[in-house]
């Protein structure tokens, strides 16, 4: 209760400061609108549905990109964990590309796909895919060998081994990769959005 009051008080003070800064007219109202203007804009947007629509579009784009990243990344990760050939090729590439901030993909995406939905999807996928590949590979390679051995003695082989032992054992790693992938997707999605708005604002 005390913490709640404290937090509420803090935000009221912030709002008052903001309002005071607006009233003092230090910056033009275009740069610093009053809190009440912003609130009424948000309210209108919420009422006429543009806010919900924009949120929906962003979320849909994010989710679609994320799932493509997952669906492609998981098998790629398994392949790199299983065969040295894939590790030396796809694995190395994933390692390189994962460190790339997803904003780097924006110019390429614009070049290849133009100002389309596909371009944004591409950026989100690139933000997700590589961390999923790497997490899956690390996860699989970190499965304690004892699980495999125990399963072998009980007659588990090939596909059964992969689906009933190695994947579940690697799951904690894979999930953390998926979370990281989600964070990347989220950020790249918003970066996209910001760029989009800027273009519109500049009248393009």
């Amino acid at each position, binding site marked *: 209760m005390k913490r709640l009051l404290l937090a509420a008080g803090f935000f009221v003070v912030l709002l008052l400061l903001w309002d005071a800064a607006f009233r003092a007219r230090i910056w033009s109202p275009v740069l610093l609108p009053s809190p009440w203007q912003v609130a009424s804009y948000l309210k209108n947007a919420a009422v006429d549905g543009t806010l919900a629509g924009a949120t929906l579009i962003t979320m849909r784009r994010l989710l679609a990109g994320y799932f493509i990243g997952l669906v492609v990344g998981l098998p790629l990760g398994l392949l790199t964990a299983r065969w040295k050939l894939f590790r030396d090729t796809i694995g190395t590439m994933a390692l390189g590309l994962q460190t790339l901030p997803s904003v780097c993909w924006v110019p390429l995406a614009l070049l290849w796909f133009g100002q389309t939905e596909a371009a944004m999807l591409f950026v989100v996928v690139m933000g997700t895919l590589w961390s999923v590949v790497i997490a899956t590979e690390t996860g699989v390679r970190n499965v304690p060998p004892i699980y495999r051995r125990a399963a072998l*003695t*009980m*007659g588990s082989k090939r596909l059964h081994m992969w689906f009933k032992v190695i994947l579940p054992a690697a799951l904690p790693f894979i999930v953390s990769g998926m979370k990281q992938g989600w964070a990347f997707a989220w950020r790249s999605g918003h970066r996209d959005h910001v760029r989009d708005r800027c273009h519109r604002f500049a009248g393009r």
Partner: protein
Amino acid sequence: MRRAVRRRSSATEELEVIAPSKLAINNVSKSFQSASGKVLALDRVSLNVAEAEFVCLVGASGCGKSTLLNIIAGLEKPDSGEVLADGKPVTAPGRERLVMFQEPALFPWLTVFGNVLFGLNLKPNLSRKDRHDVAKYYLELVGLSRFERANIHELSGGMKQRVSLARALAPNPRVLLMDEPFAALDALTREQLYGDIQEIWKARRKTIVFVTHNVREGACLGDRVLLFSPHPGRIQEEFAVELPRPRDINSVDLAAYATRITKALKRIGQAEAVAAE
């Protein structure tokens, strides 16, 4: 004993007592390449184990006991020599010979019940109900019926070993290979398990190879106790323990056997490495 070993009314063929295997280990050698050079883990080890015999291997750390168990299980290949189970060479792991490993090997992503069911799910020609009945039977046998829905990390060390035992017993193997299964437990829990394992062994008729550091434990459980010596790993001496069963770990007769075995260990110069109990 605390728990009656009985057949359920719904018992399937799975719960029939099947013939335990006869093992022949002939001149098995195995070496490992490590950073510090080549280690001869096993040097021409030969050993015969009769059907339904309980054999204990005692020896210092690093003398190749686990390696021998892995080779019998088919998880590792010997450099030379062979292992025969009922006259047939062992070339790969299989559910005829199940292992209770030295390190924790239960699957943490499955419940207790899921772990016991794992090996059963891999056996063909069983209905879903059969599998469940068999898993329940073994959980009851090790006294963990109440915990079948529990997660592995919620169990105590002793309970985990019981689940491992149930998991190894469930597919009804002919041979049970146990690698220091009770080493990490407190004395009280261990004493309970000595009783349980003897009872289960009698009821289910398995050939058991049991590895331990503990001379008294070996004398309590084994029909025979074999002494291993390290570098290179060899079987040095063997003792037949002729005491009636079930044996009590604290009995005086058993202590006499333990003393004799410990003396022999001293003679081959490695008593200091074996738990002084």
